[in-house]
């Protein structure tokens, strides 16, 4: 509670902004046009140069690492990207608990180790069924109880299906945490140093920087989607486990493979977790059949801390007994 989040764009004058350029870059494909951006010459150079169009109509070459995309305002973040209905498909047959999704997500959202927007569970439905790795983001439900119970409208459902949290509005009552049946939401129990790493102004679309005493969660990275990128977890997964796309266009991609969503779900018997609860998630799972890896591969190279998490799962306790 010590720090008011310094979220207002006006306050960021201490940084050297060259607010002169309009960048036509990587973002073109998804958004179908020019993407506004600005330069931050203070950042370390990557050496990779890209050509950009300035507002004066000139084409200049700048370092790729200097390009910054401005985050949308709190107000605009309530609207959603027009004409979109986002959907995620997670292929359980491919997951081997590499945890790249978790780590990249934490890095991208400037999260401390204590907070994970993406969690990887080791599930086993019954004693005689096979265990499998189960990555779990926010399900961005179409009937979100977390949104219904919020007393101040700090969490909201957008036209593009994304459920976001405005941590500038959140009073931290945690009712949404108990409302969510999927243990998705996390609370900032104190101020973490990682929050200070983010120098950009706050936007609910980026869920960063975090604010002590408020709730946050996986946001489907709308800030990345706006500039034509895939969410951190999708882009970082070495196995291509996670597909992301648009329900209206009926297409999902993991960055390298692209499928027709409806066909993928039909062919691979896609399902939603705990359908019985009636929350209508936007995240689908493909069952762990014909797996590419044995489940034990998921323990390779894990941190001791992470390995300890699975100690009390039925699968591990049974193995130990043997």
């Amino acid at each position, binding site marked *: *509670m*010590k720090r008011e989040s310094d979220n207002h764009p006006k306050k960021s004058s201490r940084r050297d902004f060259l607010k002169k350029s309009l960048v036509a870059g990587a973002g073109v494909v998804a958004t179908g046009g020019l993407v506004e951006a600005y330069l931050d010459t203070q950042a370390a150079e990557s050496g990779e140069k890209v050509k950009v169009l300035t507002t004066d109509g000139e084409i200049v070459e700048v370092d790729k690492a200097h390009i910054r995309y401005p985050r949308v305002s709190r107000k605009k973040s309530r609207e959603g990207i027009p004409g979109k209905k986002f959907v995620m498909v997670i292929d359980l047959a491919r997951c081997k608990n590499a945890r790249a999704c978790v780590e990249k997500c934490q890095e991208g959202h400037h999260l401390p180790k204590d907070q994970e927007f993406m*969690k990887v*569970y*080791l*599930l086993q439905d019954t004693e005689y069924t096979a265990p499998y790795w189960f990555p*779990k983001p926010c399900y961005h439900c179409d009937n979100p*109880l977390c949104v*219904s*119970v*919020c*007393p*101040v*409208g*700090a969490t909201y459902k957008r036209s593009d299906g994304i459920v976001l949290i405005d941590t500038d*509005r*959140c*009073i*931290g*009552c*945690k*009712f949404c*945490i*108990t*409302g969510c*049946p*999927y*243990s998705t*939401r*996390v*609370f*900032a*129990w*104190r*101020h973490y140093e990682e929050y200070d790493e983010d120098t950009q102004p706050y936007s609910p679309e980026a869920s960063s920087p975090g604010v*002590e*005493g*408020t*709730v946050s969660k996986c946001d489907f990275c709308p800030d990345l989607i706006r500039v034509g990128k895939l969410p951190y977890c999708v882009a970082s997964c070495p196995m291509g486990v996670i597909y992301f796309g648009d329900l209206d266009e009926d297409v999902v991609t993991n960055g390298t493979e692209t499928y027709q969503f409806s066909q993928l779900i039909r062919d691979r018997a896609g399902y939603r977790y*705990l359908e019985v*609860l009636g*929350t209508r998630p936007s995240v689908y799972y493909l069952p762990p059949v014909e797996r590419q890896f044995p489940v034990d591969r998921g323990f390779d190279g894990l941190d001791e*801390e*992470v390995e*300890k*998490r*699975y*100690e*009390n*799962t039925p699968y591990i306790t049974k193995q130990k007994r043997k």
Partner: protein
Amino acid sequence: MANEQESTLLQEFAPQIERTNFIQAIWIFFLVAVIALGFYALYIQITEGHEVTGMRDNVVWGIYIVNFIFFMGVSYAGALISGTLHLFRAEWRKPIIRMAEFITIIALLIGPCYILLCIGRLDRLQYLVLYGRIQSPITWDVIAISTDIFGCLIFLYLAILRDIAAIRDFQTIRLPKWKRKLYSILALGYSGTPEQKVRLHRATDIMAAMVIAIAVIVYSVLAWIFSVTLQPGWHSTIFGPYFVIAAVFSGCGVLIVVMWLFRKIYHLEKYITRKHFVNVGILMLILAALFGYFTFSDYLTKWYGSERNDELLINLLFDEYYWLFILSNYVGVLLPMIVVGIPKLRTINNITISAIIVILALWINRYLIVVPTLESPYLPIQDSRPAWIFYSSTWIEWALTAAGVAFFALAMTIGSKFIPIINVSEMADLPPSEEEEILA
């Protein structure tokens, strides 16, 4: 004649109102010290963040919420007991309703403070009004509780008005000037004319009925905060009435203990007799039976149907929480039924001891509703951090809990030094039957 009796009664209570003796001063100092410790804990919680509590991402609500439900429940003592007894004109109520009303209003002021302790951003509390959404049960709660506090304050004020006027008119009492002036302002010019009497009586009747209704609503809304969610163990249709019954039950328990304490300390043996303990005890017995019935129905259906997550919850209750479960849901139900049910056992001390057990049992009952459910979510908790798996409250939370109890005791003490703890004016009123006889 009524006035004479009023004076005699007031004479008896005058010493408490006039001065504070040494032991009382120590007692008050002790309570203030406990409250100060609570404020210190609060200071730490605010400066260092909620990390100093035992709450974490799975168990996001801990003993603060338990205390919230508990104090709100206790506040029921006055609302229902005093309101109902007033409406039914139960004569024996007269010496104890003042205590019940004090309990109500004090507990009602403490309860909501605990929900504030759970809120991460107290600096944004105004958002509840500025951006309030009527869809949220928390908004229902804000509306219900504020209405309840307002209604109960009016009810209590109407109930003490006649005594305030009596003290104002009571010449032999030695009071400092400011105090006398205070009484005279608070008496609102009440002088006991027949017209005033009728008006006051009517207003009290209306408020008694309203307070009962509001209290039922408040407690149901409180239960719905839990039962509207999908959490196993919370998502139950029985919760509304269950919480209402549990609330009156705990209120009865606290009332008995308060009766016992004031009886001992202020030597009220003449007014508060075994009859009062037995009568409130019988009320407690009925509520124990109802409470036991609700508890049994709730857990029986969960256990018999044994949906996977209900089963996990029941296993947790009968494993980690076995003794607490037995104490709260068996001992807490059966003990008052045995003690009050068997006439031989119905002594003042026995009833009081069982009331203490009831209070404890109900606090634990709420703990067992809140915490184990959060410890057994749909997705199993897979974590290496012990605090994230099982909730364990810290000294900060206990210090603030103690502060709440201390504030309750302090407010009862000070309240009883301001207004006689027995309703002097009502005691002086003749019972309706005798009044009729005189008229005949």
